[in-house]
């Protein structure tokens, strides 16, 4: 008989109360501060990601409002040029790096194991590490703002202005090191998502049964694995130039300013898609619930998600149309930038058809999802215009592009995210958000956003360059800017309504139950909020809509949700094959640990040491991180790493 610690046939049954109780003991996080610091529960980490991302959203929003006050009229003096430059740089950094991507990581962290029918992410501790580093890197960059030396060269940070010669303060050091630091978080997070998807799905969940949200985050994660090294390298080279006198971007010695642009945009263009594809996935999964109909064209939409990202890797030069590259070479990228509208069109028509062929139930979440289609189209067509090379020579670096990026990032990220919060809040907390306040919230945000940013296209067409801290009254931009400022404040009130709704509903919201929306996917089969082990028995999936199968009546087999695999010899979940979800291993999942926190503390010490040139601190930080890493990886008997010797 084989050693049961090394191999066994999982039991297959319905969960009993005693069994669930055992699981609870195995998976729960210890109470108090100790548990809070050491937890590796993906749900806890997901919520933390969401909350932290919203904190950065608010910080970036305050910066935006200050800028809007400065620009509300010509020749105003709310912010001086130095403060304005840091404000727009930190606004971009906050929104793009510290809000838009992490907030999606929050959703994915919380939801992936639940929608995939697993008990945790593939690497729970890496998950905790990824979160701690994200917080540390965000605070690291904001520390620059606190001492008045925040990054000041915009989010794309062109050299040579970012070089020491023109930018002698610590501003750019905060940015360079902060981005390398944040890159670690993104990379380990992305690898975690990829392996989670490849290996820890419920049995039967073949690739054709993945929710679109999963496709979105998977695609974004693969893109990050391939793209983040580019920006980390660029910032590393910049930091070397600034601190050690290397000559990567230092022109008098032969440095190449355009190399920065290539490295940055090779990363940043895919990144922009990484900011929207998971959010589009939220809509693709949320909209059908409220339309009472499966998404139209699952296969084309899944493909469109992946194709967008592939094409997204081939359009980085469209940020460089005005750099002197010969027209023929530009035209290739113009073609790529225009053709990228095709997969977007697939998604738009799939969503629209889903609405037409369904019976839309008008909830707040639905309004956010449906309005996103319109905002997506507006952001899409302005993007299509910038793809046309000669037109872009005029559009680029004007407020037209500012309007475009806000339609993309607010329209395709913030609106789905807020919709997602209305949709999954019951799952997160067990309580519903207030629908009445929700409707107010939606209309305020929707109207405020469009008042602020729709006229901004015209501001651009009338020639206002971006990143100017003031303008003169004879440029003809006064009225439009005043309107935009009013809209921005209305939008901010809308965001505040969301926060108020969350705070109120946490206490007095209606009790949700497991599946308040009668939604089709696995996360709605478990109680709200889910128990620490997610699934008492590992479900077995037979279609893309396990909870709708009985009513769609098109699958002659049915998914098993209440009967399934019992895995209770420690923290266990099932490992399955990448394509078909065939079970092939019983995975032992790690318990809570302080090591992720300790490792990120060490890394933070290291980066602070590098920033202020306290080399001993950098070395000490590296040592702490190293020790934490070794302890982390030390094989454990309970994990089955060490053979249990029967004496």
């Amino acid at each position: 008989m084989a050693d049961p610690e090394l191999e066994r046939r999982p039991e297959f049954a319905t969960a009993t109360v005693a069994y669930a109780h055992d699981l609870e003991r195995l998976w729960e996080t210890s109470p108090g501060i100790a548990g809070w610091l050491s937890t590796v529960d993906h749900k806890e980490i997901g919520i933390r990601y969401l909350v932290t991302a919203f904190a950065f959203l608010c910080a970036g929003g305050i910066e935006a409002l200050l800028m809007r006050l400065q620009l509300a009229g010509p020749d105003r003096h709310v912010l001086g040029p130095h403060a304005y430059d840091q404000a727009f740089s930190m606004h971009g950094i906050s929104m793009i790096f510290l809000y838009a991507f992490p907030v999606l990581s929050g959703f994915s962290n919380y939801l992936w194991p639940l929608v995939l029918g697993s008990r945790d992410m593939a690497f729970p501790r890496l998950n905790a590490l990824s979160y701690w580093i994200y917080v540390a890197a965000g605070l690291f960059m904001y520390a620059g703002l606190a001492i008045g030396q925040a990054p000041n060269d915009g989010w794309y940070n062109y050299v040579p202005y970012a070089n020491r010669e023109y930018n002698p303060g610590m501003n750019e050091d905060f940015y360079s090191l902060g981005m390398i630091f944040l890159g670690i978080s993104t990379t380990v997070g992305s690898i975690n998502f990829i392996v989670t998807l490849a290996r820890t799905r419920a049995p039967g969940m073949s690739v054709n049964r993945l929710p679109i949200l999963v496709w979105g985050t998977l695609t974004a994660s693969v893109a990050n694995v391939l793209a983040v090294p580019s920006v980390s390298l660029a910032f590393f080279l910049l930091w070397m130039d600034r601190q050690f006198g290397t000559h990567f971007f230092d022109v008098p010695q032969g440095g190449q300013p355009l190399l920065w642009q290539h490295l940055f945009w090779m990363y940043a263009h895919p990144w922009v898609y990484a900011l929207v594809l998971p959010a589009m996935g939220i809509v693709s999964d949320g909209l059908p619930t409220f339309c009472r109909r499966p998404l139209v064209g699952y296969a084309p939409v899944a493909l469109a998600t992946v194709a967008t990202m592939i094409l997204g890797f081939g359009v980085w030069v469209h940020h460089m149309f005005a750099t002197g590259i010969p027209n023929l070479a530009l035209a290739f990228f113009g073609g790529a930038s225009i053709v990228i509208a095709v997969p977007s069109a697939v998604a738009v028509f799939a969503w629209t058809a889903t609405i037409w062929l369904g019976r839309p139930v008008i909830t707040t979440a639905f309004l956010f999802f449906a309005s996103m289609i319109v905002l997506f189209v507006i952001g899409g067509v302005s993007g299509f215009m910038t793809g046309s090379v000669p037109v872009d020579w005029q559009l680029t670096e004007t407020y037209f592009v500012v309007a475009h990026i806000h339609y993309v990032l607010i329209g395709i990220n913030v609106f789905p995210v807020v919709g997602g919060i209305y949709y999954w809040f019951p799952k997160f907390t067990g309580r519903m958000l207030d629908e009445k306040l929700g409707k107010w919230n939606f209309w305020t945000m929707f109207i405020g956003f469009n008042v602020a940013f729709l006229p901004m296209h015209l501001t651009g067409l009338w020639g206002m360059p971006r990143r100017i801290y003031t303008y003169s009254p004879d440029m003809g931009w006064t009225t439009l800017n005043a309107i935009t400022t009013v809209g921005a404040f209305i939008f901010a009130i809308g965001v505040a309504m969301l926060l108020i709704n969350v705070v109120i509903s946490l206490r007095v919201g209606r009790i949700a139950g497991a599946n308040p929306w009668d939604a089709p996917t696995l996360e709605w089969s478990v109680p709200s909020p889910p128990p620490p082990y997610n699934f008492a028995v590992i479900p077995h999936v037979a279609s893309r809509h396990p909870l709708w199968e009985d009513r769609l009546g098109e699958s002659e087999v049915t998914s098993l949700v209440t009967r399934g695999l019992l895995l209770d010899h420690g923290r266990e979940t099932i490992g399955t094959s990448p394509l078909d979800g065939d079970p092939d291993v019983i995975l032992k999942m790690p318990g809570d640990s302080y090591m992720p926190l300790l490792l990120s503390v060490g890394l933070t010490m290291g980066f602070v040491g590098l920033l202020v040139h306290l080399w001993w601190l950098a070395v000490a930080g590296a040592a702490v991180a190293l020790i934490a890493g070794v302890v982390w990886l030390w094989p454990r008997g309970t994990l089955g790493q060490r053979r249990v010797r029967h004496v």
Partner: protein
Amino acid sequence: MSETARSLPVLPVGTPGRRSLGWWGMLWAIVTEGTLFAYLLFSYGYFAVQLAGNWMPRQVPPLRLALPGIVLLVISVPAMWLGSFGARRGRTVALLIGLVLALALGAAFGVLQGLDWRSEPLTLRQGEFGSVYYTLTGLHLAHLAAGLLGLLLMLIWSALGYFDARRHAPVLILAAYWYFVVVVGVTVFVALYVLPRVW
């Protein structure tokens, strides 16, 4: 309920070799680190094209220390393979010998590279080539150091008896990483020591 029932097989538990999550994680870590070097090599090529022949130092980096170094590093591949072979078969002696050899060969490469740095007339601030040279070799050395540390840990864990024929995923994971370090080392060698000579 379907009648096309499939009975569930006996499944391994824990971290069985290449089915372990760690192995998959390492694959993707290699992908992302490999991409990092690809971008750096792209930058190198970009300088080469933009600056044509005007950026090479008068003396390209000498082969005296680099060539033996890279040979030793390549020889560490069969050593590492011996180690992982030993781990898979549960032959602790082969495992230990392989790990010790790989560790020694890798360390020797690191020492030679360090000596090369010291004897090199080139400096970090000496033109683009100096900057690229030290950044590429430096980043590779950093990855090598991580590999050496891993080898050291594997040695300790092997000596403590953590691995056998059924449980040896960490050795396979480290071996994958080590092969990656060697491939990068050879690539860097070709880029910095060979290409400037044949240009």
